[in-house]
């Protein structure tokens, strides 16, 4: 029996900023937001003035002011890259309860441009630490910095527990790059687009520069510029639009910890719980998923998440890529846009997951802008999972195509 929120709302449009990737001329996060929102309005035919609820990481009031709208529902959940999957969950509840009919979920983050002009703009995320945080007090002496310095510990524990190897995970980077070569919008689409773009081999992944052993740079996502937005609508509103709805069948969210110091099991995330909630709401299981969009901040993130979502047995997540199932033409395509590893990752990657899932299930993943021949799959169902923080928080959605 599907849950109460089953198909209570649909994604009715998904759009990106005009330019994404490593922008030659820097842009601000706000600019990336607005470009995506404007494009979304044009795509769906829904005027910005009709938006009733705004969901974004910490940004919502500033965005509403900038757009000159007075929303009925404001959400600023900012718990890392999975926040956008949670925003969709919250928007479903707000629509189901009758508070709103149209919700905007939006993202803008100048991860690359910030090097030149500052203002990464990740909302409040990451600013909770400091003097008042005992977790920071007891961690700050020990030379950990950016995300890979943390995530490497999970990979080592996974290798210890299951006997997996760096080569196993390297297949994830290789296959994900193969998808990127089918997507002209991907930062690593080709050598012409980026000096390090185009196809890569497993050996290249293994031999690239060490960031935090066992993670080489090709096991890590990029930090580029991205803006994106999706529109969520009630069935009544969706029926009056020209864009295809992609139905929200299930949603769930959970967390394990905020600081990696509190990660109980380094080989597992809360995605097992958020996925269980999403599957239960959808009345479906992992065997019925025909596509997966999985936050791949690092190859290990994708491997563990595939296990948590029930797409592979514990310790065998990497086999989906290694055995070719996740690759173009495989039985369970994963990260068909090229992933955070090779498409785009601005710091928080939850929005690109939603956009690509919408495009695939609405049949618009191959329109000459968003994909070369071979990128559009025949999938009718998709599981989307965002992971935030240091393998900390997760949001999971089950999407189904329109009948």
């Amino acid at each position: 029996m599907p849950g109460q929120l089953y198909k209570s709302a649909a994604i009715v449009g998904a759009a990106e900023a005009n330019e994404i990737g490593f922008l030659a001329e820097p842009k601000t996060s706000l600019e990336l937001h607005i470009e995506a929102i404007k494009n979304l309005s044009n795509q769906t035919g829904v005027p910005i003035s009709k938006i009733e609820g705004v969901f974004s990481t910490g940004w919502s009031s500033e965005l509403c002011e900038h757009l000159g709208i007075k929303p009925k529902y404001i959400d600023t959940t900012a718990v890392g890259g999975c926040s956008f999957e949670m925003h969709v969950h919250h928007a479903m509840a707000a629509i189901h309860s009758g508070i709103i009919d149209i919700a905007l979920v939006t993202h803008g983050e100048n991860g690359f441009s910030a090097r030149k002009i500052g203002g990464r703009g990740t909302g409040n995320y990451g600013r909770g630490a400091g003097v008042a945080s005992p977790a920071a007090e007891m961690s700050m002496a020990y030379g950990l910095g950016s995300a890979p310095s943390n995530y490497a510990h999970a990979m080592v524990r996974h290798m210890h527990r299951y006997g997996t190897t760096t080569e196993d995970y390297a297949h994830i980077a290789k296959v994900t790059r193969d998808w990127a070569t089918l997507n002209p919008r991907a930062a690593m689409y080709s050598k012409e687009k980026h000096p390090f773009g185009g196809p890569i081999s497993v050996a290249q992944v293994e031999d690239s520069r060490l960031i935090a052993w066992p993670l080489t740079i090709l096991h890590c996502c990029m930090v580029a510029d991205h803006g994106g937005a999706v529109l969520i609508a009630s069935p009544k509103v969706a029926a009056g639009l020209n864009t295809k709805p992609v139905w929200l069948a299930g949603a769930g969210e959970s967390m394990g910890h905020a600081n990696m110091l509190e990660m109980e099991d380094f080989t597992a995330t809360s995605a097992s719980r958020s996925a269980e909630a999403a599957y239960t709401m959808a009345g479906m299981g992992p065997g019925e998923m025909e596509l997966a969009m999985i936050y791949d901040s690092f190859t290990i993130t994708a491997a563990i998440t595939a296990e948590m979502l029930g797409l592979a047995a514990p310790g065998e997540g990497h086999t989906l890529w290694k055995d070719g199932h996740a690759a173009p033409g495989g039985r369970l395509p994963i990260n068909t846009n090229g992933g955070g590893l090779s498409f785009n990752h601005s710091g928080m990657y939850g929005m690109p997951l939603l956009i690509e899932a919408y495009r695939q299930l609405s049949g618009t993943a191959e329109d000459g802008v968003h994909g070369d021949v071979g990128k559009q799959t025949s999938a009718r169902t998709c599981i989307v999972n965002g992971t935030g923080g240091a393998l900390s928080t997760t949001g999971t959605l089950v999407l189904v195509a329109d009948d």
Partner: protein
Amino acid sequence: MTYNKPIPTRGTHTVPFWEGAKEGKLMLPRCQDCNRVHWYPRFICPHCHSTNLEWVEASGEGKIHTYAVQHLVFGPWEPEAPYVTAYIDLNEGDRMLTVLRGVDPQKPEEIKIGARVKVEFEQANEDTYIPFWRVIEE
């Protein structure tokens, strides 16, 4: 030599920890109701939600839970790279983060998860002694 790495900014409820460290003691918060220790130090027991907490001296021994080798580093730790970071399972329960001593960062495969470690303290300034963990030769 002056200690040139980040020195923890102290909170309001961790004084016994830092006072203990000065004397070479590893102090842990323990709940007087459920008797379990926890780390990092809380205002409430994360196991049973009692606020009846006390500080106890720990054995200062534990085992490696997992580790990594930091190669790309910015800031004060940069000159030390590569170095090994590790999470330590304390004998008393729960887990601490450290920069691991007594291991070769160039040979990460030789570091053993489950290897026994012992705490030691390094003086960072007049008041602060920072705990680090070292692998014990078997």
